[in-house]
């Protein structure tokens, strides 16, 4: 009896310890989940935006809605620039807001992963047949022991996933910002082109007016007059096309700024593109910069990390479940027996090999995808760099050569006009040609700015001007160690993971 009691006492202590462990872990998890401030996530994303693009949302959720509206209103009071348009988008664009909400969703998932499965309380009662004896009552409280043991692993996995979401959110927001800038520049240059088309129409109108008066005086034929009218109508058509372009550009920008377009705010924008900057961003080692900076690449790398973690989890999970419980039973004869209970799955038939193989395949697939993406990004960066440099050259030729030459043509045509060697139509045509060159110059300038935004987007962040020092140009980012796909492929063949 004593021995038995002793034995029963040991069991009791064990049971108590298990119970305590379950309780403690539960308490830790419950306390732990409330200890990280919610705003930290958006602050982190803001920090990334600040570092990469020089913008920040300057908003936290505590600020009241009308506070934000006030700030937006202040930005709208000035003529919009590409920078202030981005600021407004950060505050108002629903897609950006929606991306920020993804952070909350990811955080919820992360917290969820840190929670233990709830313990299971089970019991049954059996009644003696024929009315003799007491009711047999059996109760048990138990939990999955592995769940507790795997908790740190699972939390690591969830945290990687959360990091991945943060990267993805930042990337999405940067894409929206790039969209805002592209459409802003598009609106600016379509507006400028519209101005040039108006000038061209004016020149055509004057030509037509001369023709009309010459015709009235009996100096030109109806044929010549009608030809002049045709030229004018063509200029009018060009203006209408250009007007439509402005409308489309405006309508595309409005939702990006988070506006409904119901006329809540009139869009006053700086109606000309910024001048060509004297220098381009530093174009040194652009491809390396892109590979280091791109947040979607970082997210893809994170994904590989996640797969590695889930592989560990799967491998550990060869024994899928170990349930432990405390069980107490009052027999019908009145004796109470109390003791632990365990239950474990024996991995005899299913040793999770397919699941492990699957994850391994997924890891390699992701690594190949990453390699493909890296090559695509390198190519994209080279193309966009070329586009930007070509656009710069074209703008420079228009600005420094073509347009001044067109001006010279006007001066020289004027001199010929002065000596009655040429007529007013030739003078107006010289002006038309100048206007056309100015328009083409503006188109090239638009191409430049849009290529620059595209390049920034391809690089995953703003590039400092060429004047800044080479070493300081690469932004520090957390490097995640990921094996190169082909090397890791070899590695996989030589040894497993754990």
């Amino acid at each position: 009896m004593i021995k038995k009691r002793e034995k029963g006492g040991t069991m009791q202590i064990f049971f108590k310890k298990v119970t305590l462990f379950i309780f403690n872990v539960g308490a830790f998890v419950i306390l732990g989940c409330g200890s990280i401030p919610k705003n930290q996530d958006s602050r982190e994303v803001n920090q990334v935006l600040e570092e990469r693009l020089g913008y920040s949302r300057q908003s936290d959720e505590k600020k009241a809605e009308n506070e934000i509206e006030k700030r937006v209103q202040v930005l709208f009071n000035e003529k919009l620039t590409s920078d202030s348009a981005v600021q407004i988008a950060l505050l108002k664009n629903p897609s950006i807001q929606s991306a920020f909400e993804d952070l909350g969703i990811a955080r919820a998932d992360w917290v969820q992963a840190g929670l233990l499965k709830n313990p299971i309380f089970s019991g049954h009662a059996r009644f003696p047949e024929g009315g003799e004896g007491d009711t047999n009552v059996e109760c048990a409280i138990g939990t999955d022991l592995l769940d507790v043991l795997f908790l740190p692993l699972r939390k690591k996995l969830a945290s990687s996933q959360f990091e991945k979401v943060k990267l993805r959110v930042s990337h999405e927001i940067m894409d929206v910002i790039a969209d805002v800038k592209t459409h802003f520049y598009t609106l600016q240059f379509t507006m400028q082109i519209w101005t040039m088309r108006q000038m061209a129409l004016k020149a055509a109108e004057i030509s037509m007016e001369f023709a009309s008066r010459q015709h009235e005086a009996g100096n030109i034929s109806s044929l010549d007059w009608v030809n002049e009218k045709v030229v004018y109508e063509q200029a009018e058509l060009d203006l209408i096309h250009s007007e439509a372009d402005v409308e489309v550009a405006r309508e595309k920008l409005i939702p990006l700024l988070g506006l409904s377009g119901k006329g809540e705010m009139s869009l006053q924008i700086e109606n000309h593109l910024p001048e060509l900057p004297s220098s381009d961003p530093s174009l040194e080692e652009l491809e390396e910069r892109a590979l280091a900076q791109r947040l979607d690449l970082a997210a893809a790398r994170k994904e590989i990390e996640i797969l590695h973690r889930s592989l560990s989890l799967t491998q550990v999970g060869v024994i899928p479940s170990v349930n432990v419980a405390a069980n107490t039973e009052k027999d019908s004869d009145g004796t109470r027996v109390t003791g632990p209970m365990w239950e474990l799955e024996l991995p005899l038939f299913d040793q999770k090999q397919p699941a492990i193989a699957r994850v391994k395949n997924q890891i390699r697939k992701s690594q190949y995808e990453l390699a493909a993406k890296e090559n695509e990004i390198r190519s994209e960066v080279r193309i966009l760099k070329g586009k930007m440099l070509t656009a710069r050259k074209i703008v420079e030729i228009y600005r420094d050569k073509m347009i001044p030459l067109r001006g010279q043509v006007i001066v020289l045509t004027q001199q010929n006009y002065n000596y009655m060697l040429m007529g007013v139509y030739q003078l107006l045509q010289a002006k038309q040609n100048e206007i056309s060159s100015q328009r083409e110059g503006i188109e090239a300038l638009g191409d430049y700015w849009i290529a620059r935004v595209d390049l920034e987007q391809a690089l995953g962040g703003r590039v400092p001007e060429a004047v800044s020092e080479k070493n300081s140009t690469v932004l520090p980012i957390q490097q995640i160690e990921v094996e190169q796909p082909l090397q890791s492929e070899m590695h996989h063949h030589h040894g497993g993971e754990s």
Partner: protein
Amino acid sequence: MKRFWRMFLVVLILSNIHGLVYAQNDSEKTEESNLPYTPVITPNGSTLPWKMENGVKVFHLIAEPIKHEISPGMVINAWGYNGQTPGPTIEAVEGDIVRILVTNQLPEPTAVHWHGVLVPNGMDGVQGLTQKPILPGETFAYEFTLHQHGTQMYHSHGDEMTQMGLGTMGFFIIHPKKSEHKIDRDFAIFLNEWFVEPGTATPNPNIMTDFNIFTFNSRAYPGTAPLVVKKGDRVRIRIGNVGQESHPIHLHGYNFKMVATDGGDIPESAQYPETTGVIFPGETRDIEFVADVPGDWALHCHRRHHPMNAMGHDTPNMIGVNQSGVEEKVRDLVPEYMAMGEKGMHEMTEMNMQGPENTLPMMGGAGPFGSVGMGGMFTILKVRENITTYEDPGWYHHPEGTVAESIDKSQAPQAEVVSYTCPMHPEIYQESPGSCPKCGMTLQAESVSK
């Protein structure tokens, strides 16, 4: 051969006598007082000096590219002789033996044809036909006796489109041994046409008909020197043309007679008074008159666009086109714009605007009463009393009351005004035809003095 030497000897002796008689002091300089003729004046040009060498008058022409001023403000890349176009005037006397050395400093072969001069065939100067080309750097000698007198010419006879198009020609004047009558002032004017694209400096030798610069002695008005004569002078004007067009040369203030062609003197019986003489390509004409009426008399080609400089052919016709309102609109786009042409072209001569470089205004020239509004083949015969030199005497001072001028408005004849009225309703008056507003009858025109 013997005959040639005999001839040569005779000629040599004769020319020595000539040299002794006519060029006594120094054969290098032709001194006017010693010459048996009135030397020819080539306005804006010069006479070619000569040397006597063993009785032969030796001249030296150098064909070369030159810079030539058409008129102040316009210098062209021409080809000429001895630094000028037309080349210097060769003057000699009937019976002279002349040796003319021609050095070619042009970039291509040339030859010089003595146009209208009766020469041995081998001296005729037709490149390839009567002689070898004078290659760049070579000097050829032409030698012949002058058997005639009159106004002749010389010009290149190789690649004529280029060489003559760029100015290689000149006068060859042979005075008679003995003049019938004394000429006081003997002028020579070479006519020429050029095409110089406005804003350029090199005449385009490929142009055949559409010329834009018309010159007297390769000068365009206001760059042409005036012809200054004393009242009572007998004046001869020799006019030569080796260009593409004929030129009716008109002299104001006088009747003249055409006294000679390049073929010789015109018998007096065949002369008749006229005011305009047409000189066709390849011709010369001498006109003569006594300058007995003082004044500044215009002498010009009578084709309307010839006393005029370059003008646009394709410019829009703005005559009578009201530009008010549009002019300002153009200035918004082209600030220097000035409306022109509505009331003709005269206003251009007064605007003094900047034209293309190296280009003459279509018309201009400051006169005593404002802009003369001429260009091209235009010059002034200045006839003066009591002058001692033939320097440019300035503008003519008209005796009082001899210049047309504006008269008092009250003295001006009344302009007739036509008005329209109704035969039935005389109170109806209007300035344009129509029908009566009262009865609908057609209004009748009637003249009223305002």
